[in-house]
């Protein structure tokens, strides 16, 4: 999932620690939402939502409607600004490779979003539908339920989910550091090779 380059959202960014937008960014986003609110109800219906998400991301139609169903937690067929803001934060977290940090920082709202039937538990099937939002691979999801689903019923309660987000965020951070280090080593070796070649 990628944000379209040059779109309005592409110019926003999350604070890396709290994974939230600044007040100024929120104001700009509110103005954007207000312009899209054609019918003056402070909401976006499914058609407007679909065209918005289709315009700014490369998500498929089925994925967009899945996201809409997830965010329409009151089942009124419309998305308010609160849900819109949450979505934008998730998109930006994905874009900036902050998915782990985002889930860690906002574990409760994320859990509530993924708990589609409101029973206080996330099933593997439901989490699987939405793993594209958090850049979780299929195997990682299987390992998640295997390692953290302590009750063994292929369901995650909030405590298990929270534990997962702590360890996942830590793992992602270490992975990113390793990748950066490897990148730096490759650049240095390339530079030293060029230097030797010139001599």
């Amino acid at each position, binding site marked *: 999932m990628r944000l379209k380059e040059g779109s309005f959202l592409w*110019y926003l960014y999350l604070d*890396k*620690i709290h994974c939230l937008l600044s007040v100024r960014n929120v104001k*700009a986003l509110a*103005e*954007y939402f207000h312009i899209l609110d*054609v019918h003056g109800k402070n909401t976006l219906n499914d058609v*407007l939502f679909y065209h918005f998400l289709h315009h700014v991301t490369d998500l498929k139609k089925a994925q967009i409607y899945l996201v809409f169903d997830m965010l329409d937690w009151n089942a009124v067929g419309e998305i308010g600004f609160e849900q819109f803001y949450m979505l934008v934060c998730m998109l930006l977290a994905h874009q900036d490779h902050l998915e782990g940090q985002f889930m860690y920082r906002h574990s409760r709202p994320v859990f509530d979003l993924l708990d589609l039937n409101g029973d206080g538990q996330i099933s593997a099937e439901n989490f699987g539908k939405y793993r594209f939002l958090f850049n979780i691979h299929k195997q990682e999801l299987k390992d998640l339920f295997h390692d953290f689903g302590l009750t063994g019923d292929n369901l995650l309660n909030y405590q298990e989910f929270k534990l997962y987000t702590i360890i996942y965020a830590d793992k992602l951070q270490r992975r990113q550091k390793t990748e950066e280090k490897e990148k730096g080593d490759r650049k240095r070796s390339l530079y030293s090779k060029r230097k030797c070649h010139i001599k």
Partner: protein
Amino acid sequence: MEEKPSKVSLKSSDRHDSDKESVHSDIRDLWTRTTLSQAQLNMPLSEVCEGFNAEGRSISKTRRWYSPGSRSLDEGDKASHKPEELDEHALVELELHRGSSMEINLGEKDTASQIQAEKSSSMSSLNIAKHTPHRAYWAEQQSRLPLPLMELIKNEALEILTKALRSYQSGIGRDHFLTKELQRYIEGLKKRPSKRLYVN
């Protein structure tokens, strides 16, 4: 896991740094880096604004740029210099002295508040902004979104809504009130000039 917030805007702008030169790069520079370009980064907005009212005039009574009867600068020396060669304080002193010398009646009342009003209007007429940005200007800039960003928002919204209109027309028909409402809205949006949004 903890990182200094000051690094956030620089590091997270990696995505932005890869852009080619374009109009959008101007928007990006204005919007995402505007705070980095300002002279007084750490000064809270309340401090910047406390000395100014809504019109940008100084209301501070404690600040005295110029006291009648005393000159900190020799006017003759300053008059012979070009404005560019004088520093900000000297320019203000000179202008205030010229302004006050044209006054007919100063009166015997405490003229400090009058002089303050004169000073602020004199200050705004000077080209000090060339050398030092006016604090009220920066305070105002901090509370507004850049116009290119508003244009970007509006144009993108128009594209989205135009596609949505086609869906409305095919889904619920051209005569449905929602379709007509959307059509009118799009036409209104096209005609509407971009206005800058105040962020308060």
